[in-house]
């Protein structure tokens, strides 16, 4: 059928293809692409829910929102929080995922059970696990605090002392949550890659007398770099704009405010749509900039590897 070089058949195929894909295109266009363009327009207008009907394509455009958002006192600290939260959360989840994948690489009794258990934090609804953490860390009746000599308000205390050093308690707790919840994601990716690796290289290294750490460093890790790099990009993108986890755990209080929570607050409690949109755009721009820096850095690193 497809071997016939008839032009009309080819045209038919093209038309059939377009009509089959059109529902997909229409829904992404209407619900994702057009709203995005509108969000960009809103960021440059003085938009509130009350006067939203007066804004339009030919409305009054201004840069005020950006100036206002960037000069607000909480903005830069929330951007720093976002960056710390993202880098630490991404890094930790990948490292733990890697350790887990290496530990579960070879068979042992009960591996299926452990593997299933590891996947649950990632599969379970974020609201349920956030509430679970809140309960377990509660200073009055949380089980974790019954194991400690002095109760710690993990989620409501901005600063605390640990071994004589000032530490941001709530931010660290949120980062720990992030690592706990998303290491299964890294684990799945890395384990799949590990199990697809050819065994010969590893065996050859054993014959050559390489110790386990040497094999990890010179045989396994070079073959995992691509997967780890991809994971780093994915997790960075997802975490940088993440709203649910921080909002549910602390509500953005106790020094954990990230930009996405600020956007939500501008949108709902302050009813300032223009400023919310401007802030979200600034967040997206920073995301692109950090990604560009990372990709540049990594592309250089990969050339060195070869």
């Amino acid at each position, binding site marked *: 059928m*497809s071997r016939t070089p008839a032009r009309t058949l080819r045209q038919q*195929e*093209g*038309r*059939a*293809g*377009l009509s*089959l*894909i059109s*529902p*997909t295109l229409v*829904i*992404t266009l*209407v*619900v*994702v692409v057009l*709203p*995005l363009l*509108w*969000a960009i327009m*809103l960021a440059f207008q003085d938009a509130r*829910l009350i006067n939203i*009907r007066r804004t339009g394509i030919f409305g009054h455009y201004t840069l005020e929102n950006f100036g206002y958002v960037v000069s607000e006192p909480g903005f830069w600290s929330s951007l720093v929080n976002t960056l710390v939260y993202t880098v630490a959360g991404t890094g930790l989840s990948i490292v733990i995922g890697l350790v887990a994948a290496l*530990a*579960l690489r070879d068979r042992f009794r009960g591996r299926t*059970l*452990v593997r*299933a*258990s*590891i996947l*649950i*934090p990632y*599969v*379970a*609804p*974020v609201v*349920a696990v956030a*509430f*679970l953490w809140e*309960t*377990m860390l509660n200073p009055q*009746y*949380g*089980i974790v605090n019954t194991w400690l000599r002095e109760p710690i308000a993990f989620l409501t205390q901005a600063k605390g002392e640990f071994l004589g050093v000032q530490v941001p308690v709530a931010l660290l707790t949120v980062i720990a949550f992030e690592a706990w919840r998303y290491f299964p994601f890294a684990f799945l990716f890395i384990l799949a890659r590990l199990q697809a690796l050819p065994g010969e290289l590893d065996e050859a290294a054993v014959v050559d007398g390489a*110790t386990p750490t040497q094999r990890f460093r010179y045989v396994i890790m070079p073959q995992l770099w691509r997967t780890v790099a991809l994971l780093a990009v*994915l997790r960075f*993108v997802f975490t*940088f*704009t993440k*709203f*649910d986890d921080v909002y*549910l755990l602390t509500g953005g209080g106790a020094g954990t405010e990230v930009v996405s929570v600020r*956007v*939500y607050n501008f*949108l709902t409690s302050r009813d300032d*749509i223009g400023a919310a*949109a401007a802030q*979200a755009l600034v*967040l*997206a721009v920073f995301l692109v900039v950090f990604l560009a820096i990372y990709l540049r850095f990594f592309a250089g690193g990969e050339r060195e590897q070869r």
Partner: protein
Amino acid sequence: MSRDRFERGLLRVLRPVVILALFLATAFPFLYMVTLSVRDIQELILDPGSIWPERFTLDTYVDVLTKQGFLTFMRNSAIVAVASVAVTLLISIPGAYAVARLRFFGRRQVHFLFLAVYLFPAIVLAIPLFVLFTMLGLRGSLASLILVYIAQTVPVTVYMLRNYFETVPRSVEEAAAIDGCTRLSTIWRVVLPLSKPALMATGLYAFMIAWNEFLFALLFLVEKRESWTVSLGLSQLAGSIEIPTTVLMAGSVVLTLPIVIVFFASERLLTEGLTAGAEKG
């Protein structure tokens, strides 16, 4: 050689320790969730350190399902999730088939669109959609929520299904065409029956997104209690002082259990489907 022996010995000890730590870190919180949900609040206050309840009670579940309205929330979540899965599959099956098999204008660019939607921050999208649905008076309706979930999942499910459709041999489809099948009936009678595992996987993905999602449910439904989803219901009630924590824990079990069951049931089905395909060569 001694370094090798040392490292091997160390790993032989470390590996079980790491596995045990991972198991405890992931399993214990969920075990605690379940045991906390079947005891009375008094017991928790008096003895917060105990893991195992002294007296079991299911009153917490009765309370959360009826008095707190979780039955309604579950119904809403089920409506949203099932409708999202059905419409997502309905839209993405023809779309994926087109991308896998048919040459049409813009076929290459479609991938870029999909990747963009997949990586796109929901918080940016939330603003215009919140405004739009407020203006249209559609906030509080489950339909608006379903629409957003479909738009967010379709690009990914098209991609997942396309990868699978490409493994269906062309010759089978050509045979069907010779037997007089139109393109649509070829998809319906030949491609879909051969793609059951992939359909399961994509359906599961759409279900999980719809059941677990929080941000859009919060933005669209928060003012209308009778339309709350389970996720939104739990998050809203979690802050109140009147409802005992153990009752809310029963609510979290109710929220988590369906997803865990669906995930593990279909994970096995998936691997079975794949091995069955391998046997036929």
